[in-house]
């Protein structure tokens, strides 16, 4: 399907927040990453997608 209506994203402001530094990675994020790692082990990325 062709996308006929154009759309853009206007970025919001990005601000460094030191309170986000050195926090432990959340358990949920680690679990998701582990599932993804297993997915790519079972389904390696095709060579053409590895290219930059």
């Amino acid at each position, binding site marked *: 399907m062709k996308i006929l209506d154009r*759309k853009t994203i206007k*970025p919001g402001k990005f601000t460094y927040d030191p309170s986000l530094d050195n926090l432990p990675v959340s358990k*949920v994020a680690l679990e998701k990453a582990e599932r993804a790692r297993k997915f790519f082990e079972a389904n390696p990325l095709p060579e053409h997608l590895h290219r930059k």
Partner: protein
Amino acid sequence: MKQYQAYPVTFDVENARFRFQSIGKRGVFDKIVEFIPISPNIHNLALLDYDLPTNKYSDISVTDNGDMPEVIATVITIIQRFLDSNPGQKIYFEGSTAARTRLYQIAISQVFDPGDSDLLIEGYKDGQWVLFEPNIRFEGFLVKKKF
């Protein structure tokens, strides 16, 4: 032309953890995006709700805040920033359920214009990666820079 305004974002020194607030019909909710490496050139993206009073993260809570396009637009700007500071990397993400992945897909279709972005989104479907299309039910998404 339709323009989607992404939310303001704060980030950590490593550009690996980002926070923003979803502001919608049900109130204000803290969202966290975390990138975790899963291979030498792929990071997994986790989009989580953060409950400040309990200090708990969740990827299954349903906020139904009516602003999914703005949330996904914000996540796309975060991916853009992450890839700018981590050249050659790719980002993988999926929803915590098939229904949530479908919601992400709908929101991506609403806000993402492949011709107007330097990002390339591929979708995983039936064992194959194909360029993102609005009407295919993908199981996961891979994002990389076009160049």
